[in-house]
Structures are given as structure tokens and as C-alpha cells.
């Protein structure tokens, strides 16, 4: 486990050590990206599609921060608009129809705080994603691979299990935002990071997440282990049967 302080983990979480497209490419084969929310657009901050996890068909949905500056600007550094959440929900509905497990990969400072996002109903889009995912009967596993910021992250994290990379964070607000609201001073972010309890270890202890994924030095081994763990978890969930998969997910959140 990481020996870093909370603010150091928060900083590490923002370092782009993993990119959405690399994660998908290394976990699944035959990935076919599917575009658009079927209403108004195709938000590049959310990418999704279908592929094979070993022999298991899966739907992958990832928040994408991009690699080069141009893509970072397009994705607003991984802050989806309403359209991005509607695209994610469409792909989840499709996965549910075809009894295909859903794996979400989350790395976002939060939904985009912008005029177009508000006018597009980003709150409503997140709400609908959360409430509908409570009724899906397929296994859903969410992985936070960087920042898990607020409702914009939760929209893709209402899963049967939530896992976090060793250097990732999950919180209702960024340490800077929290410090600026609670202390009227964004510079007190390190203190806020302590108070927020946003590290994987703290969240594991509080049963907010089920698993912390060690990143290690060997990427090939890392992906191999992660693929194996995902397949095992999916298999265990499938053994419950559709109705119990849904109930397990609802009860997971009832306990909070």
C-alpha cells in the first residue's frame, strides 16, 4: 500500500499515469467503440463500447481525460457534459438488454461546471444514470483509476463493486474546493485532503470501496491480474442470478 500522505495521493491521482484508451486496450480485445448519446452529440470525455474480457463479452465505459493538450481541451480534462452521461447511460441500457457486464473506468475532477452543461441538464443526466443503474440486472464493476470527483464520478460508480487504483482518490469535492468552502482558503487543501478521507485505504476501511488495486512496476503483470480479478468478480456475480445482482447493488448503497 502507498505510504503517501492524502494530498500526495491526490496529486498522484492527477498525474495521468493511466489513460482511458490504454486501460481499455490492455484489458479487452476486439474493442469496438460506440459513439453518441442519440440525442444531441458525442462527448469525447466519455468513451465506451463493447469488447471481450478474455472469453466474456463486456461493455466498457470510461471517462477520458485525453493525452495530448488538444484532447485534454476537448474533454475538458475529463469533465463530462450532460451528453457524456447520456451516452454512458445509453451504453449501460444496451449492456443490460444483452445481459453483458458493465465495467466503468472513472477519472474525473467532476462534471463540467459550465453554461452548456447546466443548460443541457447535467444534474438530470447524472440523476437518471444513478437511478436507472439501480435497476440493471447485469454485473457492474466500477474502477476509479485517478480522480473520483463528486456526483460526476458517482454517475458511473453505482456498481455492485467499486475498486480503486492505489494512487487514486474518491470524494464529494476536491481538496481545493473543500478548503475554499470550509476554510475560505484553497491553499489549505492538504488539511482538507486529510479531513475528506479520500484515500483508497481510508475508503476501504469505511466500506466505500471493496478493493484497492496495487499498481506495481510491471504493467503486463498488472493488466493480467486486473483482468483475472474482473473475470472472477463477474463470474461470482453472475452466479447470483439477475434479480439478486440488482438487489445486491441496491443493498450495497442502502447500508450508507
Amino acid at each position, binding site marked *: 500500500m502507498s505510504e503517501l500522505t492524502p494530498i500526495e495521493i491526490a496529486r498522484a491521482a492527477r498525474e495521468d499515469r493511466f489513460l482511458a484508451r490504454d486501460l481499455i486496450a490492455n484489458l479487452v480485445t476486439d474493442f469496438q467503440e460506440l459513439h453518441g448519446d442519440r440525442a444531441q452529440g458525442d462527448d469525447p470525455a466519455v468513451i465506451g463500447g463493447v469488447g471481450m474480457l478474455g472469453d466474456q463479452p463486456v461493455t466498457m465505459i470510461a471517462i477520458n481525460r485525453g493525452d495530448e493538450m488538444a484532447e485534454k481541451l476537448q474533454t475538458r480534462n475529463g469533465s463530462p457534459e450532460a451528453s457524456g452521461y447520456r451516452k454512458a447511460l445509453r451504453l449501460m441500457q444496451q449492456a443490460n438488454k444483452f445481459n453483458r457486464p458493465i465495467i466503468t473506468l472513472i477519472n474525473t475532477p467532476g462534471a463540467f461546471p459550465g*453554461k452548456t452543461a447546466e443548460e443541457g441538464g447535467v444534474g*438530470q443526466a447524472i440523476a437518471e444514470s444513478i437511478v436507472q443503474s439501480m435497476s440493471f440486472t447485469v454485473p457492474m464493476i466500477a474502477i476509479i483509476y485517478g480522480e473520483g470527483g463528486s456526483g460526476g464520478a458517482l454517475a458511473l460508480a453505482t456498481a455492485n463493486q467499486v475498486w480503486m487504483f492505489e494512487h487514486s482518490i474518491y470524494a464529494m469535492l476536491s481538496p481545493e474546493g473543500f478548503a475554499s468552502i470550509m476554510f475560505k482558503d484553497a491553499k489549505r487543501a492538504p488539511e482538507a485532503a486529510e479531513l475528506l478521507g479520500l484515500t483508497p485505504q481510508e475508503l476501504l476501511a469505511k466500506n466505500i470501496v471493496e478493493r484497492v488495486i496495487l499498481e506495481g512496476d510491471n504493467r503486463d503483470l498488472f493488466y493480467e491480474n486486473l483482468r483475472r480479478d474482473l473475470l472472477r468478480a463477474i463470474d461470482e456475480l453472475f452466479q447470483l442470478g439477475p434479480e439478486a445482482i440488482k438487489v445486491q447493488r441496491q443493498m450495497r448503497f*442502502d447500508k450508507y
Partner: protein
Amino acid sequence: MTQLFDNQADKFKHAPNPDAFDKVPAGSWVTCAYCGAQQYQEELGEYLVCGVCGYGFRLGAQQRVDLMTDKFEEWYADVEMTTPDFPGYPEKLAKARAMTNMKEAVMTGEAVIDGRRAAVAVMDARFMMGSLGAKTGEKLARLFDDATAKHLPVVLFSASGGARMQEGIMSLMQLAKVSGAVARHREAGLLYVVVLTDPTMGGVTASFAMEGDIILSEPHALVGFAGRRVIEQTIHETLPKDFQRAEHMQASGFIDAIVQRPELQTYIGKLLRVHQAPLEA
């Protein structure tokens, strides 16, 4: 001289009856939070509505219940946060409880509205800005589950700044917990009506306040996800005055109807009737 006197008389002809001033207690000038018009408290009427723009002044939960229901039986009145472990949180809670005479930011129960039964939740913005804590979430989730068991519709009046900062990630989890209960109510084919009131922001907008089958709003209510200041700092633009107001949100497609407060009870009553909510026993 005479003429001057007549002019003065003419000038005062439309002034309020001087005797009326005696009936107004000191300090009862109020300013409308939306249009800025100043008026006497009494002019707002029992519904506390601005006579100029129709904005509904913020109500406490009990006041709202009294105005919107014929009968009300409170549920889970004793549910409260007993382990507030964040610096300053116990004091904030104590203050909110003393001010509102409530133990949490939402009042829940079963009501009769225009002769029809419904489970009702009313959030109170005076209680830590109506923020969503674990116990707020528990009361809401239980309300939806009990409504599902009793085959009752739910009518929810939202008023919240969003997540409760002091509860951190647990506050965020309430979005999912309450939504799970909404999902069960939904699956049972039951009606859920939301009335957005001023203000409804953040995580509440990103969950149960936007999950209604029918979403109503009071005039000019502030409704949004991100705060105005954060948006302005992000996009380096000054936002228009009506941004995130109910009228703007309705034009964007997210609100079924904006209803004046005095008409709300009748309006909800009609919706309950169309959806065949059970009659008062």
C-alpha cells in the same frame, strides 16, 4: 396657497391609509430575494409570495406542510445524526435544530392533499442549507420504501444546497441510497412528483430532485448542479441573470410546469387524481 395645498392633497390621494402603519410591527419590510422589490411582510399574504414577481419566499418545512396539505402525520421525526465527527459539526447541528425545531433537514410523513393520500417529504433550507447528510438520506429512502409498501405516491419539495460538507463521502453515497429507493418505487409503478423550490442545487439536483415522473417548480427558484461562481470562474464569462432559474430550466426542457405557490396544492391534487392516488380513508 390654496392651490399648493390642493396639489399636496392630490399627491397623497393614493398613499396608504396612515392608520394602517400602526398595524405593521417594526422591521417588517422585506426584500424579495429575486426581484429586489421591498414590501411589507403582510403584503406577501399567507403564502409568502412577492406581489411584484411571484417569487415564493423560502418556507420552513412545517410552514410548507401547513400550506400544502390538509392533514399530515409525521414519520421518522426522531431520526438524527448522533455521531457528528467533524470539527464544528455538532455546534452547527445544534444551531440548526434549535432554529427549525427539527432533527434533520427534511420533514417526512403521510399527508392528505386535496383529499388524496401521499407520502410527502419537505426539505428545509434553514437546516444547514438543506444539505444532504446520512440521516437526511435515511429519512428519504425510508419514505420511498414505506410509500412503495403502502402503494402511495411520493410528493417531494426540494430545497438544498447539495451535499453536507461535514459528512464527506457518506453524503455523496446518499445520492445513490435515496436513488435506490426511488428505483424500487418506480418499479412498483407509483407516481413521484417533485416540486423544486428555491434553492435546489448540487447533489440533490444530480439525484432525487431530477428523478420525478413529474417535475414542478415554484417561480424563479434557483435550480442547478454547479454553483454560479464556480461556473463563472471556469468559463470566464458573466452569466445572465435568469441563469439556473426555473424559467430558464423549463425552457431547456427540465421542468414540466412552473406553478404559483397558492395554486400548488390544487395542481398536485389534480395530478394525484389523474394517477388514481388512494382517497383519504
